[in-house]
């Protein structure tokens, strides 16, 4: 596959390491009342869509950026690639 890196353009997916669902960005608040349940869901419960999927890829043999890649799991078509840091900020993560 070829992943269009937002900074570096098209790159062979060989250069990347795959992690999984981009929801891993949404790490729960440890002090929330139901923190144990939320962490359990965060870590173990995943959707497994046949179709569009947002997922985390690490440009390990590249610029060390984590990317959020929107990919169709059936056709492998990649419709969007973002820097994970930007996605994290947009989802309200900070420090």
């Amino acid at each position: 596959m070829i992943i269009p890196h937002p900074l570096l353009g098209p790159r062979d997916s060989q250069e990347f390491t795959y992690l999984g669902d981009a929801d891993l960005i949404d790490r729960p608040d440890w002090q929330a009342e139901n923190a144990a349940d939320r962490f359990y869901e965060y870590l173990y419960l995943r959707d497994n869509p046949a179709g569009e999927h947002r997922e985390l890829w690490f440009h390990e043999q590249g610029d060390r950026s984590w990317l959020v890649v929107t990919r169709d799991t059936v056709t492998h078509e990649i419709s969007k690639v973002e820097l994970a840091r930007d996605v994290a900020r947009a989802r309200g993560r900070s420090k």
Partner: protein
Amino acid sequence: MSQSHRIDGGLIDRSRALHFRFNGKTYQGHPGDTLASALLANGVRLMGRSFKYHRPRGPISAGSEEPNALVELRSGARQEPNTRATTAELFDGLDARSQNHVGPLSFDLLAVNDRLSPFFAAGFYYKTFMWPKAFWEKLYEPMIRRAAGLGSLTKEADPDLYDKGFLHCDLLIIGGGPAGLAAALTAGRAGANVILADEDFVLGGRLNAETFTLGDASGSDWASATVAELAAMPNVRVMARTTVLGAFDHGIFGALERVSDHLLQPAAGKPRQILWRIYAGRSLLCAGATERPIAFENNDRPGIMLASALRSYANRWAALPGKEVAIFTNNDDGHRTATDLLAKGIKVAAVIDSRKTDAPRTNRYEVLAGALVSGASGRLGLSGVEVRLPGGETRTIACQALGVSGGWNPNVHLTCHQRGRPVWDEALAAFVPGGVLPAGMSVAGAAAGTLSTAGALSSGAAGAVKALADLGIRAKPADLPEAEDAPVRIAPLFHVPGKGRAWLDQQNDVTVKDVKLAHQEGYVSVEHLKRYTTLGMATDQGKTANIGGLAVMAEMTGKSIPETGTTIFRPPYTPVAIGALAGRSAGKDFRPTRLTPSHKWAAEQGAVFVEVGMWLRAQWFPRPGETHWRQSVDREVLATRKSVGICDVTTLGKIDVQGTDAAEFLNRIYANPFAKLAVGKVRYGLMLREDGMAMDDGTTARLAEDHFVMTTTTANAVGVYRHMEFCRQCLWPDMDVQIISTTEAWAQYSVAGPNARRLLQKIIDPAFDISNEAFPYMGCGEITVCGGLRARLFRISFSGELAFEIAVPTRYGDALIRRMVEAGKEFDAVVYGTEALGVMRIEKGHAAGNELNGTSTALNLGMGGMVSKKKDSIGSTLSEREGLNREDALGLVGFRPVNPAETFAAGSHLIGKGDVANAANDQGYLTSVCFSPNLGYTIGLGYLKNGAARKGEVLRAVNPVQNAETLVEVVSAHFVDPEGERLRA
């Protein structure tokens, strides 16, 4: 033997003779020949035996679709089985042998299978070898394995090199026939970056095998002139002998270039083949079409071949399988063969055209319209065919060659590699590309169903213009010569009804009867039909067979072919050697090797090395007289604990962590607190995964308020770094923290033992006080050594001794170890390897990789108290789960044999004294075991249920793998210096 069947003309170089051997006999051919064409020219039609029935077979094609003429090439370690004689380029000294026979090719003892054929029909194995069950492993399978398969392997290592490579282009053109050449001219002249790949060693495709003219030139002359023009363009890469094997995601293609297959052996250091990965903006499939046979009884006799192949052999290679030739066709193309052969003065006995009214009439040769070939004679080589005339009477026609033309199948294979399904074209009676093609791919020429030469040329040019337009490159179609533009006239016919065996898939020996049997037994889906009969499952993927099988199935079910369906193709287009897939990653180059800064010195000392990940580390340093590794390791351990030892610890991961939030960042990725670590101090850190399991551990030193250096275990360096980048970028994107690996920038040595300080005082510049008061346990600092070289010093200990780790820029690592060894002479210092390192850490009870095994929590490791509950850190919440905190959770403890003379092994399970050794009674297991030279007996670390509370208990260490069992006592994990006095000395 002379070239008895060589005729005039052809694209061979008659000025040079090439000598080659087939089954031990020497023959001559010419440059430009394939092995098959040269054998035919020498009157050899019989080239192999079939897979199942050992039927005598000769080539049916003149290309890569060949199912029959599979031979072994070369000998010794270079012997290569199952090579198609029809594509093997002839070279001087080629040594080839037929395969799959016992005894001579002409009298194969296993041909008895053919007589037993009623027993070997489809599904034979499934039905026959079911019973008795016990016979399968001992009798049936070994027997089948001996009899099955075609060629044989030498079992010697392949001496040749295989390269991999990467190419980028705007337009990849697959196939260099008329469509591909017209496309390449169009795209090349427009300035686009073009790759034109063709599996043949001469580009031109059918242009080299036909007698048509293109404008004023012969087809082959036009092709070679066009190739010459393309080769002169810097933006075009013409790749002959290159098969595009697969179409993968996003415009990536795999292609195999056979660089040296046409040589006796590759030149020194040169690859035999190159597996290219081609990144193409657009691709144009110009793969042409493959003629298909018509099945009839005994249609596999050597000498029966595709009519187009017969034409290719005559026109391109000036070779003929027989002096008298007949043609069997259902379409006009068969008549081309007759015309071409006649023009060469060959006797055409008859053209049997299945079409009653549409068959062309001519007075140049006899046409038997509405007739069918119903049989063939000549077991080892065709001697005649039996023809059923329209009136029902039969006639025998003597011939040594029969050309069969059942119509042309577009080569749609690559359009299927992303699950595209071809669609049926009624006019062509063939499948053409349809549905969704791989991204960026379009199809031109015969592959798209445009079977005339003029059509191929213009569709190739138009295809290139359109593909380039997608990329924003303007091109205009190349000027093209006048060419043949005959329509396709065909009356579908796939097999001739009859009682005997008519072969559909000649490579897997599948007959019309087998397909009928499958239908009778209830197989409806073509996918099931394929697997039950093995039709199309041989190395040729049924290029000449699939549609025949499908047609028979359709006939049985009363459906049309498109209703019956079709199977699709997968990569590779043609078989690929495993060596090509491995590339350079073979033998000791399977993966790269990382060397430590002391490697050169250690090698000079005769060190024994061990692979740790990609690193080579010194395992121990044998001294003269030491004959067993234990002698060396025991000596290294004892000398270190007695005086001082040096060890290269560069391989541990080092990550530089900086920024105003660096301390808080470490606080979150380590389970234990880090925020308040003082500058100039080091702390042990335990890193958890989010699920609460230990991920890694190591020490982290604070060099400044906003600057830390973290160490990781050697094995986890990459994973920990990746995890830290995830935390930094995805979880806490606004933290001011920057990380970068410095593992290799510093050569780092551990200096351990009571005399460690005294040794280092000789190395470290006197301005730096490393006394216990000035530089206490867990201190760190930047220093200089040997008269001013910048260095780092950490007072940390893995061995449990007074110990330091000293780091200098890597280029000085070799000099530093030499200097330290010299300085250590007065203390009888030793250098120790990973084995002694392991012994000392087990003696000290330090956890390492064996304990951090992915299933152990902080609690299991005896570090439950370290997990801070006052802060958020990765893994802290889930490590509190009930199931991970049971009272009987595994705890890390030490073990020693009740009888000190006995020993035990890591991996042994702990079972109560009176209990049966089974999973239900399992109480834990041993993780690390060694002989302790300090204690004089074997010691171990292991996980035991509620271990901390069970000291003094005696259990059995059970090792069912080696059938061993030892009584062991539960003890503290700290075998040496449990109070830690030594490391604080």
